[in-house]
């Protein structure tokens, strides 16, 4: 995963969760970030689709619950 993608994704997650920029790092996931619940997961994926112009399938939305998994979706 490129560093550019990581910083875009961490900024996106922080933005959707209303967290200060920089508080979400490359290792962040649903388990480690407060407020990243199932509703937030939908909001993150909605914004992810729009920002990166990709269409996520159900598996992608349900599974991409960390920064690294979101970045992996961009690579594919």
């Amino acid at each position, binding site marked *: 995963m490129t560093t550019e993608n990581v910083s875009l994704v961490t900024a996106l997650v922080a933005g959707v969760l209303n967290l200060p920029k920089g508080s979400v790092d490359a290792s962040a996931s649903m388990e480690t970030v407060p407020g990243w619940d199932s509703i937030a997961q*939908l*909001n993150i994926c*909605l914004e992810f689709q729009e920002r990166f112009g990709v269409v996520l399938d159900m598996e992608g939305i349900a599974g991409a619950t960390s920064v690294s998994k979101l970045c992996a979706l961009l690579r594919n």
Partner: protein
Amino acid sequence: MRTLLLSNINMQPLVAFLKPWETTCGEFNSILLDLSNPASPASSADYDCILCLNDSDSMMGGAFYGEGTPEQCELFLDVLNSFCSAHAEKLVIANTFCLSSGRWLSFADLLHPLSLRTAEVKLNEGLIAIARANPNLLLVNTELLFRRYGEDALLSESFWYLGRVRYTNRMFRSMAALIHQAVDAYANRSRKVLIVDLDNTLWGGIVGEAGPLGITLSEDGPGRCYRDFQRALKAVQRTGVLLAICSKNNAGDLEEVFDQNPMMVLGREDFACIRANWEPKPQNILNIADALNLGIESCLFIDDNPMERELVRTALPEVAVPEFPQRIENLTAWFLHEIVPASFGRYRLTAEDQDKTRQYKMNAERQRLSRSLYLDAFLDSLQIECIFHVDPKERIDRIAQMTQKTNQFNLTTRRYQIPDIQRFLDSCDHAIVSMEYEDRFGSEGMVGLAILNYAESRIDSFLMSCRVIGRNVENRILQRVCDLFRERNCRAITAEFIPTAKNQQVATFYDSHGFKVLSQEEDGRKIYEKIIE
């Protein structure tokens, strides 16, 4: 605005886009229950706005697949109707029915009496009838978004089946913008004056070089871009927007275009004010606002020249100066999509709106006459007639509009929405007095308004449209107000002056009409009393 968002699907992602509104989501899919149960949060005083955004496909239930009738939809209409009448104090916003394009009836959908298309048209007719009967219901035509961006961009099957989220963020973003614009239109927060440049804006080319017949303006070819733009300007003018020209040109060249070019859609009579000269544009825009007796924050300026735009933005930040489209073929679509809903939105049109330019023109005529006569003789020559109405229920739109838009001749500047006005009309402790104005030049419609609080013997609001300032008709409406208090056996009337940045001209209005100052606050607010015989 404290807003409760009700829906039959998961609309939670919309909340972030509705900011700065404070929005709370109701329970999932409990919209019918929430609207019909008087103990539900929707009925409580916690919310002043109820947003009902339904997904039409889901609300159709089995009927979407040809099984049975759309009962849920009809039930929703009933419940919505009762809720709106029971809560006249709340603003209720609902979206129109809009079914997705996938239809099991395929091509038979058009002719079949029980098709989805037929059902959709009927349901929307029902919704419109409710909105006509309930001034506190604001309908938002979300179908416009599907027409503009298409289902593929707005609907999401994966989010739908995974989390009952029907839309993409493109839709949530656009829907929130549409709702904000519709509420601005509903509350009459639109701009009032559209000022346009001439060369390469109203027509192609430079008239000073090409001559009145050499400019690009035609029914066919690229000149049609400008002709259609003029048509759109004229259409918007008929909704109450005043058009004005601010251009660096010789006034004579413009006159020649008006006189000679048959492709001009707009004539000089369509413009409330024309400034074609070589003065700096910010100066001309100030002049235009001054001539129309409106503030510059009411103005929007369209000019193809980026230097001029920047100059106006810097000198007059209150004037809206949008970017101009890069390609001239997009001019009309840009104007209709971007400019009109955002800055000149209208929800309910009043008779006064549709006649506005003529009223401002009549004013110019009156001004010309007033210069040639002494004031009294001038006023006599106008043959002014004022017609008063008490609680004119059928003019509720105009009454609310006047409280929202009147700045200068407004003693208390209390802004009221339609539900507030409805409350005054329904209460026997209040009376609303309207004044219509007519003279030998024509009618100005409703131009004066007073809201009386009988319970407190108090004049709550007293205002007059700036169009009739200087014709002494304020005395007549004040007289009518005093008469009404007298009929209710009120002996001492109180009144207030609350200063704003705009209403200095009425700071001593009550003083000069026999009212005595009871108290004066530090912020300049004054309380008056008048004893009536």
